């Protein structure tokens, strides 16, 4: 399976990785189809459409039907990958995701594209910083937020191999390939520890993981040992890793999402019922003002500096 090429300066658009992976999977599994709502280009599925024109279903700009058609295709024996902007496939079609996909427990893969604040200046109507909070309520829906191109490809492969409903949140923000040990594997529900540490743990996912790694390096130079955990699966959570994180005595979560109900909320639910320690949840407070995605990250402290400072402050709250 060909990996997507870096765009510039070693940075990747994870949508390319999604598209290359789904095309490769479709070559060997004739059950795989894609479903879009006029979202071919924004999902980078032009190549899939060219190779498998009869296996792409475009329902037009109609997200409720988009998601429901996915459920119907699964009933007809297909493995549908339903792909649209994350803000619309979740918010616009939330009841279809609930009733037709999750509660019906069908083998459908929902792909939320250009998630978080990727659409920057287009504003909160097009941001998707509520999606994880909404979807986390459907207990049987697997939620994966890959951090880089390799993990995006592995998440898509794992979603295809799993018999049941999955949501994969794909970013269009340029991210670097993370450094991992040889032979690293991705498994739904398993977190990966990217940096070992004992004074605090940063739990991040998606576009925030490489920033968390950078923050840990800054802190290490000050003699602060910060662990970095990539919690790519938000449902089910890797509770063992969270319990271990609590042993460092301080936890900071970082996500390209609202501070309400996302990764931070999920981690907090585990921490308060196991080993309560000082915690800080980094993310967006709610609807954000006008600004590019890069400006929004900096403005809300979702960068190396902001994460490092949050870790210092949280360590200071240890008793």
């Amino acid at each position, binding site marked *: 399976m060909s990996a997507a090429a870096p765009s510039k300066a070693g940075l990747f658009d994870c949508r390319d990785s999604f598209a290359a992976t789904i095309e490769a999977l479709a070559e060997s599994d004739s059950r795989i189809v894609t479903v879009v709502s006029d979202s071919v280009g924004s999902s980078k599925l032009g190549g899939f459409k060219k190779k498998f024109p009869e296996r792409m279903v475009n*329902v037009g700009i109609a997200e*409720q039907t988009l998601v429901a*058609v996915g459920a*119907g*295709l699964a*009933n007809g024996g297909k493995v549908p990958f339903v792909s649209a902007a994350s803000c619309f496939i979740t918010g616009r079609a939330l009841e279809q995701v609930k009733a037709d996909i999750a509660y019906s427990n069908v083998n459908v893969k929902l792909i939320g594209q250009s998630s978080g604040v990727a659409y920057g200046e287009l504003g909160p109507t097009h941001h998707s910083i509520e999606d994880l909070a909404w979807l986390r309520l459907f207990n049987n829906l697997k939620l994966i937020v890959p951090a880089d191109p390799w993990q995006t490809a592995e998440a898509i492969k794992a979603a295809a191999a799993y018999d049941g409903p999955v949501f994969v949140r794909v970013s269009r923000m340029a991210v670097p390939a993370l450094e991992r040990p040889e032979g690293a594997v991705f498994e739904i529900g398993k977190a990966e520890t990217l940096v070992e540490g004992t004074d605090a743990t940063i739990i991040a996912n998606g576009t925030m993981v490489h920033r968390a790694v950078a923050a840990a390096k800054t802190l290490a130079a000050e003699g602060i040992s910060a662990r970095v955990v990539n919690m790519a699966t938000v449902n089910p959570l890797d509770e063992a890793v969270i319990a271990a994180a609590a042993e460092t005595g301080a936890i900071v979560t970082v996500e390209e999402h609202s501070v309400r109900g996302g990764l931070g909320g999920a981690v907090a639910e585990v921490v308060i019922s196991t080993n309560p320690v000082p915690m800080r949840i980094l993310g967006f407070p709610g609807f954000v003002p006008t600004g590019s995605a890069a400006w929004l990250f900096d403005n809300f402290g979702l960068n190396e500096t902001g994460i490092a400072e949050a870790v210092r402050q949280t360590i200071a709250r240890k008793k």
Partner: protein
Amino acid sequence: MPSPAAPLKNDLVGDIAAQALWIRRRSFQMVYEAQQGHPGGDFSATDVLATLYFGVMRYDPKNPRDPKRDRFVMSKGHCTGAFYSVLARAGYFPEADLSTYMEPLSKLNGHPNRNYLPGVETNTGPLGHGLPVALGIAIAGQIDNADFRTFVLTGDGELQEGSNWEAALTGGHRKLENLTLIIDRNRLQQGARTEETASLDPLDDKWRAFGWHVEVVDGHDHAKLLEVLSASPKGRGKPLCVIANTFKGKGVSFMHDNVAWHHGVPTKEQYEQAMRELV
């Protein structure tokens, strides 16, 4: 795959009528015993359901997920009295299970769950969900050039949900002749007449404008329902919309066309009177 309960061909219509009578009696007993349900809509939909399951569809209740089966999607998922009765009668589960309707831990929830009961294709209850899912099933059949048919029954008030019209567009666009929508046109929604709430007429013109072939029939006429639903869709080049003109509460005098019976439940005296009439 013949319908398992198929009788001698020379009295198919008579058998459907007998099944419909059984379904009305059994579903009303369920509602009476549970003191919950939607009996008015059960009765308006009963003849369509009986015709589909005992005269039209191909299925094997012992192999409920057979890829070749005809599919039926119960979009008006609140009418489980009739739906569960027909599934039990068709052999998907024991008729005795109907007595557990709405009880704690029963597989017979107020709205159908495919993970509890064989024969249920998708979980419905919220309105406007069935047609878009049925559309997806029909598209799967179209991609594979399979010969199974997909039927979906909606209420009429339900058509006020916009999701139906999204699906109507794509159904017409893709010329899905393997897809049949049946509208239970009883003209009553929960609180009032459809035409006094958000009017649907001219309903046939709307579906034609979306690229569907439309048949308007008496939804209690088994022979007519059998004729339009069993006609081969091959070569029609359009999805089929059957507007079944029905009456809420059909079959019981005091329930007939009476909005109070949307989710009304009978007293002992009403139940006994209904059973005297349903013969």
